[in-house]
């Protein structure tokens, strides 16, 4: 639960910062912060699900819970990128949230994969599974930004 909250807060923060660039006022900030929280839950669910599917041997030996735990713990890897993005945005005045967000998702997913490998899972399957999770959610986020921006202008 704590890890889900961490992921939700991180991506909500990144979402809120993204909203600042989409439109004026609090509405786009709040909307994108909410979208970020939803993306966080989707990310953890997709990552946990892919790890579950890709690690049958680990599931049989240690139970599926350890894979869910690996996915959940990956939330902590979102924290440095979130804080650095906030530093860049709010202190340095950059408009550069997207590289931070994509790097955050891919790094967090990579950590979950490395944990699954440490538990006895296959290297290639976990590398592919976690890369897929990070890639899909990063793509989803970019699509949301594009749609949100278009909706705001319309």
């Amino acid at each position: 639960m704590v890890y889900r909250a961490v992921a939700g807060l991180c991506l909500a923060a990144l979402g809120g910062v993204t909203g600042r660039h989409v439109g004026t006022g609090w509405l786009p900030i709040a909307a994108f912060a909410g979208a970020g929280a939803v993306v966080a839950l989707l990310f953890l669910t997709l990552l946990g699900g892919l790890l579950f599917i890709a690690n049958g041997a680990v599931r049989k030996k240690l139970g599926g819970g350890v894979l869910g735990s690996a996915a959940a713990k990956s939330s902590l890897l979102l924290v440095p990128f979130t804080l650095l993005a906030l530093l860049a945005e709010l202190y340095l005045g950059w408009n550069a949230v997207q590289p931070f967000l994509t790097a955050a998702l891919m790094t967090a997913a990579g950590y979950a994969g490395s944990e699954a490998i440490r538990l006895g899972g296959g290297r290639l399957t976990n590398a592919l599974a976690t890369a897929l999770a990070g890639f899909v959610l990063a793509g989803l986020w970019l699509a949301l930004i594009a749609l949100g921006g278009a909706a705001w202008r319309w």
Partner: protein
Amino acid sequence: MEQVSWLWAFGISGAAFALFFLQSALDLVRAGKATQLQLALLTSSGLLWGTLGVAMLGLLAWILARPFGCRYPLGWTLRTFALSYSPALVYSTLGLLANLVLGWNTALAFGATGVLWSLGATLATLREMLGERLLLSVIMATAFGALTLLVWAKLLSL
């Protein structure tokens, strides 16, 4: 890691930051906000940060990790820290090509992105040194990443 030469390890991190800072300078020159001299100085600063700066971060990480049972020698730590910027070198090289051939402003899209991707490798190194203490690794990686960004921003503003 002991078989990786110092020159190779710090050559990678030095080149990564030199190319990163070079792109920043090229973007500024293109915008008329920097001279050729400033371009040379910024690129040199990148090389310095990529070598001495990264070594300093590695030394700091090693000192901070010792109380937590880190048994890796200093040489291992420094070389691993330097090599963790391999993604940054890849991104910086691609960014420089895009900058020179296509005329894009690439410092943020390629340079900073490469440094961010390197944060993952740095995190992995810190986890190894700190005995898988994830929270502590996250705190240290955040501090090192912030320092790198602030140094880059400060040098750009000079």
